[in-house]
């Protein structure tokens, strides 16, 4: 028997596989055995009600998808009353993803979702901060540190900071999140992108730009996860383009403690379970008793060269 459990950012998970925010909902209970997941992560909830973006909200591109769903939200009160209870019967830690457009608003919603039944709070700091010209909090270390400090004071629950891959300085942002009190990092959200329908000459999304997710981004996010692992002491949760156990293994090997699976669930509703099974098989075949031992086993010999690496030219 392989021990798949991991300690991750203040909570213990039965296995390192969980859904990515916005790609999971209780509706999935009709289709797969939710009890088998390492954690539940909810769609980001905002303080007030929001409609989300105009349609078309998604578009497929080679090896992935664009989305500009935005954050349609019924507001935090309805979320606490209606959504949290949906998961009460499961013996799986519930991680609530939150966002707000000011640091104080963020702290406030964080306080409000810190209720029984919630195991950790994932803070989606990849969203725009209206006090910084609409730049996402996690674009810069300074704004990351500031918002994380406020969030840290707002809750005793474990805090997971979800970073944006759109920044040019992810290691520094990761360090700022750690310094600000994050218990784990989720690396990362979607990459800003777009596509055009050449027949109509219109952007394929109603909002023109949107977030790229799916296999296309995996090599980029894997690199960022690896950079973060080397920059901080807290656990890093890899998230980007995981379709199979092999993809999840890459994240664990470069040093992630756990992974989130997003877009894959849209293509294969059972993708998370297939990943869990595949991780177990890999461990068994490779004589690994505890999956936690796999974390950070990237062969060391090439590391030094990469330390100085900045661009490829």
């Amino acid at each position, binding site marked *: 028997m392989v021990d798949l459990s991991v300690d991750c950012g203040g909570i213990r998970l039965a296995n390192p596989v969980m859904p990515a925010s*916005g790609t999971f*909902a209780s*509706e999935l209970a*009709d*289709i797969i055995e939710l009890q088998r997941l390492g954690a539940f992560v909810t769609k980001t909830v905002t303080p007030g009600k929001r409609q989300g973006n105009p349609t078309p*909200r*998604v578009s497929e591109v080679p090896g992935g*998808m664009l989305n500009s769903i935005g954050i349609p939200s019924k507001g935090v009160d309805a979320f606490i009353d209606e959504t949290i209870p949906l998961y009460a019967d499961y013996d799986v830690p519930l991680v609530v993803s939150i966002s707000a457009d000011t640091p104080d608003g963020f702290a406030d919603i964080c306080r409000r979702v810190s209720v029984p039944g919630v195991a950790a709070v994932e803070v989606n700091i990849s969203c725009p901060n209206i006090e910084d010209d609409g730049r996402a909090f996690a674009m810069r270390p300074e704004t990351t540190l500031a918002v994380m400090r406020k969030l840290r004071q707002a809750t005793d629950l474990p805090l997971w900071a979800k970073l944006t891959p759109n920044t040019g300085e992810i290691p520094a942002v990761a360090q700022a999140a750690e310094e600000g009190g994050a218990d784990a990092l989720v690396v990362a959200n979607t990459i800003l992108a777009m596509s055009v329908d050449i027949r109509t000459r219109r952007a394929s999304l109603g909002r023109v730009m949107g977030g790229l997710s799916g296999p296309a981004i995996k090599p980029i996010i894997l690199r960022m996860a690896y950079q973060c692992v080397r920059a901080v002491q807290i656990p890093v949760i890899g998230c980007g383009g995981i379709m199979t156990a092999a993809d999840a293994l890459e994240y664990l090997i470069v040093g992630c403690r756990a992974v989130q699976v997003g877009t894959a669930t*849209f293509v294969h*509703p059972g993708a998370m379970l297939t990943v869990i099974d595949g991780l177990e098989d890999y461990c068994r075949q490779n004589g690994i008793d505890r999956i936690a031992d796999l974390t950070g086993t990237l062969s060391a010999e090439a590391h030094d060269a990469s330390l100085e690496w900045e661009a490829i030219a």
Partner: protein
Amino acid sequence: MQATPHPLPSPTPLAPPRAGEFDARIVSNEPVNAEYRLMTVEVPDGAAEARPGQFFQILCPHSGALQPFFRRPMSIYRIDPAAGQLSFLYKVTGTGTRTMAELEPDATINLFGPLGNGFTLPEDGAPIVLLGRGVGLATMAPLVPFARKAGHAVTAILSARTPELVMSEAEFVDAGANVLAVTDSQGTSAVENVEDMLHGLHAEGRLGALYVCGSNRLMLAAQRVARRLGLFGEAALEQQMACGVGMCFCCVRPFRQGDEIVHRRVCSEGPVFPLLEALEW
């Protein structure tokens, strides 16, 4: 919530079977006309219990430069629980349907479903009228045998560009529907004419509930008639989908709910909606 009262008792909900992902063997995949093809697949126990109006998310294969990423939603066109078979009637338009069209019998295709909420029938055996065009006919076809079995008289108004393109006429007739074809080329498909036909059917006692799919213009016409006559009705709607089960919120459309405009997910809150709540697109 139904915006206007209707004279029929509350409809019977048809509980869908549990949805699943599975590989199905293709029994046949033949062209029906220049644009449409009919694919019949063998499905595992249970899946053939799908209800009219429900749909499957089809994983279209990759083929050369064509690499569909999302699944493609397709209504169930024919349900044959005895044979354990389902059929899809589909229009070859883009990436995914083109690779679907290339599949040969005995190949497998990955399906996820049945998904969504199917049509509901009035309880009192009232006569029903189906109104459809294009792909909409595929969605409504399986309603005919279900409604006949439940004791409803069925009239189907099938709209198309030309008489040659009126699809599935035989399918509807064989299943026991009274078919009226209207076409652009004969000048019979104009909205005013269809509205007149509906009033005529009502006068003859053949219109007790109204179902529409596949055309915005026809839906608006159906709404006017249903509002005027206080009829129960349903519309099956389309929107681009990613997850197909209510998680991603990409498939929303606006609906009238009392005085409010609300967003609903076509996949999980539909694709069949109360006729009078649907907004035009």
